[in-house]
């Protein structure tokens, strides 16, 4: 009589989609309106507080660079979870990506490094698929095991491969690889300079728009473009092809899929291996674009953040891209003069909370209304009493934002129905 975690049905985020039905799909104009609204709010914050960096090209450029690895990890999570396999091993697969990416990258060409990183991640994915699909191990447990294993392997081999002979001469150490060449970045000629000059005028809204656009067209790594293409490609493959429909059917109702002749195991394998490859690519981006070297602990939990971004994005590529952008933005804040920017954004938080409070009170939901109002007042006092936010809190911003966003939106999310559940061939018979 020993009930272990492995002997029970796998856990999942509580199914809260409930009777009200899923979230209504946002149409394209509505998305544009939301983006415009957000931009307006940011412009207002910048204009009122004078924290010019909030929408500067530099900030946006940094945000984009930070968003890509998170987005790629999230995209990996998306593939796996759409096929019904929860992949918390993304972190480990990312670690493999950073390691193999840098290992091949410094010896040869960075693009070969990218390939090696993808292959490294795929190996992690294969292992995860092997454990969860073939053996039916609980997905979260297998994922944690892979994270531990990937860390152990890379730590050992980094010391062996980067601290000896040629690698050591080229600047390697037990925890660091020698530097690799950089991957070409592109800047749209003319447009970038023009946007930069517009941004410098600090005109309300116009300069903010120019700053954001400028950040997106200046010094963009080719690998970032690859990542963007992968987002579009993922949407196309998963939602517009019969292959994608079959793959998603494995995540929604594998028994039904099986009865229609879909080889569920094979689709799950493919999905999880691709998932690992994408996470590995995210890792390779970290080691080859963000820093040019492998560094122990470089991923810093980005695999988990990617997972959170995917949940935030309601298991869809568009939402995931937005989530990754948000985390990237928060991540970039800490790189650049973050204290002042986060301090400015506190004001935005106050306004949002105040609006929420008024709305709740209007709907006669007094308890949440009053709670929101009290928090808004507290944040306002904090804002007025200080000039900047301590760096430690700036570094915590992405995590706090994740928690806040998830606690506000988790009930409106709908995960694939059979996500995280153990599936055995023929179980429906």
């Amino acid at each position: 009589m020993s009930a272990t975690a492995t002997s029970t049905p796998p856990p999942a985020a509580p199914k809260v989609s409930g009777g009200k039905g899923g979230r209504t799909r946002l149409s394209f104009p509505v998305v544009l309106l939301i983006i415009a609204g957000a931009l307006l709010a940011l412009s207002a914050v910048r204009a009122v507080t004078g924290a010019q960096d909030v929408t500067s090209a530099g900030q946006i450029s940094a945000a984009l660079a930070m968003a890509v690895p998170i987005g790629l990890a999230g995209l990996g999570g998306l593939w796996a979870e759409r096929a019904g396999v929860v992949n918390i091993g993304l972190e480990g697969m990312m670690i493999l990506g950073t390691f193999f990416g840098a290992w091949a990258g410094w010896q040869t060409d960075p693009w070969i490094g990218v390939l090696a990183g993808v292959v490294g991640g795929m190996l992690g994915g294969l292992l995860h698929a092997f454990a969860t699909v073939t053996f039916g191990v609980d997905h979260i447990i297998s994922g944690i095991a892979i994270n531990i294993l990937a860390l152990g392997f890379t730590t050992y081999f980094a010391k062996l491969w980067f601290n000896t002979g040629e690698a050591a001469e080229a600047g390697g150490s037990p925890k660091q690889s020698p530097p690799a060449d950089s991957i070409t970045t592109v800047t749209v000629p003319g447009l970038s300079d023009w946007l930069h000059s517009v941004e410098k005028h600090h005109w309300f809204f116009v300069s903010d728009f120019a700053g954001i656009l400028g950040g997106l067209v200046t010094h963009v790594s080719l690998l970032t473009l690859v990542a963007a293409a992968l987002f579009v490609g993922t949407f196309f493959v998963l939602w517009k092809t019969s292959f994608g429909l079959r793959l998603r059917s494995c995540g929604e109702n594998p028994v039904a899929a099986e009865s229609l002749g879909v080889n569920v195991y094979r689709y799950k394998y493919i999905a999880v291996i691709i998932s690992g490859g994408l996470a590995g690519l995210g890792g390779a981006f970290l080691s080859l674009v963000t820093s040019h070297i492998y560094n122990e602990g470089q991923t810093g939990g980005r695999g988990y953040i990617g997972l959170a971004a995917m949940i935030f994005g309601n298991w869809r590529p568009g939402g995931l891209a937005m989530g990754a952008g948000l985390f990237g933005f928060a991540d970039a804040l800490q790189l650049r003069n973050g204290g002042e920017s986060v301090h400015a954004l506190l004001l935005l938080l106050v306004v949002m909370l105040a609006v929420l409070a008024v709305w709740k009170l209007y709907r006669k939901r007094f308890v949440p209304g009053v709670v929101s109002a009290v928090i808004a007042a507290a944040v306002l006092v904090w804002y007025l009493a200080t000039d900047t936010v301590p760096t430690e809190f700036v570094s915590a911003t992405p995590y706090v934002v994740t928690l806040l966003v998830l606690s506000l939106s988790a009930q409106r999310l709908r995960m694939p129905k059979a996500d995280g559940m153990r599936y055995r061939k023929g179980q429906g018979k």
Partner: protein
Amino acid sequence: MKKFDKERLLLGIAAPLLAIVVAFLVTALVLAATGKEPFSAFGIMFDYGLKSDSQVYILNKGTTYYLAGLAVAIGFRMNLFNIGVDGQYRLAAFFAAALGGALTLPGALQIPMIILTAMIVGAMWAGIAGVLKVTRGVSEVVSTIMLNSIATAIIGYLLQQGRLGHLDEAGTKISTTPIPESSHFFEFPTTPTPVWGFIVVAVVAGFAYWFTLGRTRFGFDLRTVGQSGSAAEASGVDVKKMVVTSMLISGAMAGLIGMPTLLNDSYEYSGDFPVGIGFTGIAIALLGRNHPVGIALGALLWGFLERGTGKLEFEGYDKEIVGVIQGVIVLCVVIAYEVVRRYGLKRQQSRVGAELAAKAARNSDQQEVSA
């Protein structure tokens, strides 16, 4: 009706043993592939790992790991994945250390206060994830991971000169104010180094874990929720309350993790306070199959591996091989348990099937006789 099933027990022990053997094989392959002689490495590990000073080291490390394993296992038994044990114990140890350094009460009063503070802080931090799960539907896996990072930020903020931090005389290390000597925990005067007295608390915690889960109504409810939330709900268990309660208990247990180090070794919280033990706890809980004795064995094994591989560094090997061994053990063990579980289930099904068939046959015999 519960009968002692020898074969089942055998299977239960065979799985982890098999995993450990496979792990050593894989490690041997890795060592051989990287041009190192594997078997002398294992020889060194066992020779050194079983020396008396190593035994003390393993017991002391094991105390910490055991508490970590228990903290994780409480969640696991209920199907809650408390990945946040890591942040919980660090935050708890930090505040407990700060309090312990600030007060100078008699030890008999202050030690329980320090421990209690740690448990409360740990419980509160875990409780956030529990409350978010039941009220807002946020998966505890994601929220506890976020809380880990936030805990790191909070400690980083507070552990500074002028806040709760305290610069040492050399001016190189920031730590909390050291806890006065009167509040140090007792030690067993073993040679060459003492065994930490906190091992007693760990044993008591293990016993409490076993008793609560196996022998009380609460433990029964908890395990029921873990096996089937809807069945528990139907039999009148308040599942939401159970989720929050078990998160709180798990967090309180996590609060104890830092105590052996704090009260028996470092007496202060500084930058070199051990980190990442929450994740070690996950591995150990998996290895020990959430069983109090299994977790103890797992904790000792982890201590042994670390001690043994540490010696390898001086013999021309790399001590980082420990990560490979541990990683492979964890992955193999979860697969092995799953295979054994499925085999056991199949065996049970076929036995029940056979019994039913025998009964049916007997019934039809009787019918023929009476006919």
